[in-house]
């Protein structure tokens, strides 16, 4: 790894350690009671509590986030590709999708629970609904962003539609797909938690509501940290894939 990368990693690590230190320091200095805000250590110690079934909840929420997210990537990219192939579907469905995108997806969650009953599967659907649109819209934009002259070049050689798609359009859209995917990571985490909040019987979000009643703030904070951890892992994986598949200069933020 290059020196610049090491520098970056060092800074990132230091800032995170700094954040935890400030949290810890202020709780102690200001004598904040544990039920308001525990220290990081107090939160961590709740992992020892077996009754909390951490692993079950962690797995449930991970399934919801990753399940819904992967579904959104597959369907979102799939739809965008379909739209780019057929002008008619694009003209017919794109405006509808833009309207549907306006629906506050969070408000759809209670309906899904009515339709599908609560559970991990339903939360996957809720997560999917929330993070599907940015992936679709970004990919569709990327598919459209083809230089007309470049198309002419391929057409002057009588290149096929398939060649245009595989050699020009799709690789050209990749940076946009990833940019949509990055936005969607945050939404996926939120989607899973919203589903669990509304009705559920497991998962870190559900667990937060349960422990809230007992004012076990340390466990709530720990649950929050674990949700964040899942999100960070997801984001990290996306960044990693982007590094592998997208040439540095072609990336869009």
């Amino acid at each position: 790894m290059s020196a610049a990368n090491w520098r970056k990693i060092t800074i990132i690590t230091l800032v995170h350690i700094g954040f935890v230190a400030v949290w810890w320091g202020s709780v102690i200095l200001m004598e904040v009671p544990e039920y308001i805000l525990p220290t990081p250590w107090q939160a961590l110690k709740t992992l020892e509590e077996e009754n909390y079934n951490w692993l079950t909840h962690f797995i449930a929420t991970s399934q919801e986030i990753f399940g819904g997210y992967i579904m959104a990537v597959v369907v979102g990219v799939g739809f965008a590709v379909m739209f780019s192939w057929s002008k008619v579907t694009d003209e017919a469905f794109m405006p509808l999708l833009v309207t549907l995108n306006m629906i506050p997806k969070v408000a759809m969650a209670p309906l899904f629970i009515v339709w599908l009953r609560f559970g991990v599967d339903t939360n996957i659907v809720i997560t999917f609904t929330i993070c599907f649109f940015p992936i679709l819209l970004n990919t569709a934009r990327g598919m459209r962003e083809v230089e007309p002259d470049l198309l002419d070049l391929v057409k002057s050689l009588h290149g096929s539609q398939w060649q245009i798609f595989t050699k020009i359009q799709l690789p050209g859209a990749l940076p946009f797909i990833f940019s949509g995917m990055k936005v969607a990571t945050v939404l996926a985490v939120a989607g899973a938690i919203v589903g669990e909040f509304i009705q559920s019987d497991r998962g870190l979000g559900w667990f937060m509501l349960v422990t809230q009643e007992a004012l076990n703030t340390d466990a709530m904070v720990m649950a929050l940290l674990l949700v964040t951890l899942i999100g960070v892992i997801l984001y990290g994986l996306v960044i990693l894939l982007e590094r592998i598949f997208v040439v540095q200069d072609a990336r869009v933020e």
Partner: protein
Amino acid sequence: METPFISLKNVRKVYRTRDIEFEAISSVSLDISNGELVCLVGPSGCGKSTLLRILAGLHPHDDGDVLIGNSEFPFDPTKDIGMVFQQPLLLKWRRILENVQLPAEILGLPMKAARERAKDLLNMVGLDGFEDKYPYELSGGMQQRAAIARALVHDPKLILMDEPFGALDAMTREKMNLELLDIWQKSQKTIIFVTHGIQEAVFLGTHVAVMSPSPARLADYFEVDLPHPRKLDIKTHENFGVYTRRIYDLLGMD
């Protein structure tokens, strides 16, 4: 007289957008022999790019005849066109060598041979050692040279260039002009070169075609009788001034 490589007769082109009809080219007749470097000049919007697109088979023309190829140099419209635009339009995600190979891939040519040819061409345009770089690692002029190599990789008989050096600074442009003449002489291709630069047209062209707007037609077509190989000092040749003068007059820019 030998049959021309390209023969345009009363070519007319109308763009139709919903209810409006726009005559982009009203009548162009032109004969071009194989191996010529024809520069096409004319004010903005007079139909130069349109004419190139017709030659490339991208737009149908409305009237007249477009014939390319003769018995000695048969022309296959599905693979004998090389194009260079104002922007290099290299694929950002491909290394330079892979970019140059693109036309060969599209045509399904044997890739091993195409690879060798791409390397040779990169050599010829002065980009040896840059095969594995990405486009962003190259300057604008270098990218445009790669684009020229790309236009040659499938060994087309006709190269169409639409203001290929228009986005470059004056100094790079002069350098590229010299290199283009060199490439043209080595490759023996027929090149149609659209430019806004009148000096550039005379300096490069074996012939210059001047187009005039409304009605869009050919205002003049003449042979540039200056010796080859040309170096920059040819611009001080007395005929050079005569030719540029002639174009300026035609375009009403005196």
